[in-house]
């Protein structure tokens, strides 16, 4: 790669459902101290897409702060999720409301099983995906790291496959490099690591595996300084991506001197 390309490396974009993005970091908007901090962190991360949830309006206090007044839709693409849905019908209902509130089709499907692991229920996820695709949605799917299910999701029309790197909100880092790599190799749609990242190096590891982007929430929101961590994640994702594109050196079992052996005095 020529140096001038490095300086202006704006051509490294990724496409999901026909939409082109240059940031490979998607951030969640949950768990922040307030929406102002949330918006500042989202800006600092350089993310172009933010995930959002759909919930009932608080009728007793309709004047409490609203997400849309801070994390603005002219600044970020909203990716509505189905958090809290346990069936396909719940997911379709939630995302139809999201489509009406926001007017777009790109959505994140997550159908979870038990509250302790928040592990995705893949059978129900696949069924939900089919319902949503039939309803005209472009669906990015949170899923387990099972390469067989990943393939089935793709065949059912998922616009992106988003396997977990570790349980949601755990911050354990990427625990499943082998299965993620297989999913990435097999997929023709973008693959994103969604969940599991705890710190910047985890994001870099994910990107070095060759995934198209990373989705995270808690790693930024629950850092002592969320805005600073957002900056760290931005750099980590870029670093991991560049390292992947550069191609790492082969691993060796023993040392290999960097200084020439010839010409020693």
């Amino acid at each position, binding site marked *: 790669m020529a140096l001038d390309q490095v300086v202006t490396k704006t051509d490294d974009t990724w496409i999901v459902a026909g939409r082109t993005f240059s940031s490979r970091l998607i951030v969640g908007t949950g768990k922040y101290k307030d929406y102002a901090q949330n918006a500042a962190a989202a800006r600092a991360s350089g993310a172009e897409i933010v995930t959002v*949830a759909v919930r*009932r*309006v608080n009728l007793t206090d*309709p004047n409490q702060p*609203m997400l849309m007044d801070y994390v603005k839709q002219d600044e970020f693409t*909203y990716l*509505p999720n189905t958090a809290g849905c346990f069936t396909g019908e719940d997911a379709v209902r939630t995302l139809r409301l999201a489509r009406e*509130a926001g007017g777009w089709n790109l959505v994140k499907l997550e159908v979870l099983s038990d509250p302790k692991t928040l592990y995705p229920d893949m059978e129900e996820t696949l069924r939900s995906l089919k319902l949503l695709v039939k309803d005209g949605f472009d669906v990015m799917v949170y899923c387990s790291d099972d390469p067989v299910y990943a393939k089935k999701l793709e065949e059912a029309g998922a616009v992106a496959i988003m396997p977990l790197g570790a349980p949601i909100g755990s911050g354990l880092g990427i625990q499943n490099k082998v299965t993620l790599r297989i999913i990435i190799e097999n997929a023709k749609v973008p693959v994103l690591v969604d969940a599991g990242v705890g710190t910047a190096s985890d994001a870099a590891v994910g990107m070095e595996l060759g995934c198209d982007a990373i989705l995270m929430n808690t790693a930024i929101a629950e850092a002592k300084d969320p805005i600073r961590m957002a900056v760290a994640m931005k750099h980590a994702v870029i670093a991991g991506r560049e390292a992947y594109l550069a191609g790492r050196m082969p691993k060796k079992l023993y040392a290999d001197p960097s200084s020439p052996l010839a010409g020693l005095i």
Partner: protein
Amino acid sequence: MYRVKPTSTSRTSVKRREKWPKWAEKRRKMVKILLNGESREVGAANILALIEEIGIEARKLAVEQNLEIVPRSQYHETAISEGDRIEIVHFVGGG
């Protein structure tokens, strides 16, 4: 249909009603609905009036009536009937 402007607090809706002219009061029939899972008596005759009664900007919402989405363009012509199950949602932070 007589409508009031949304004010900063929804709690004032009772006070506002007192100021309504007699002819409007006569037309106004309270109906019992299930709004966001809570049983409520509302005076609003349609979805637009209901949103104004609550005091939220319509552009930030989505509304479902008896499991059917109500498009924003139809808020004013969508009548509210006794026993309706209405959900009013918006976007909140999430991962």
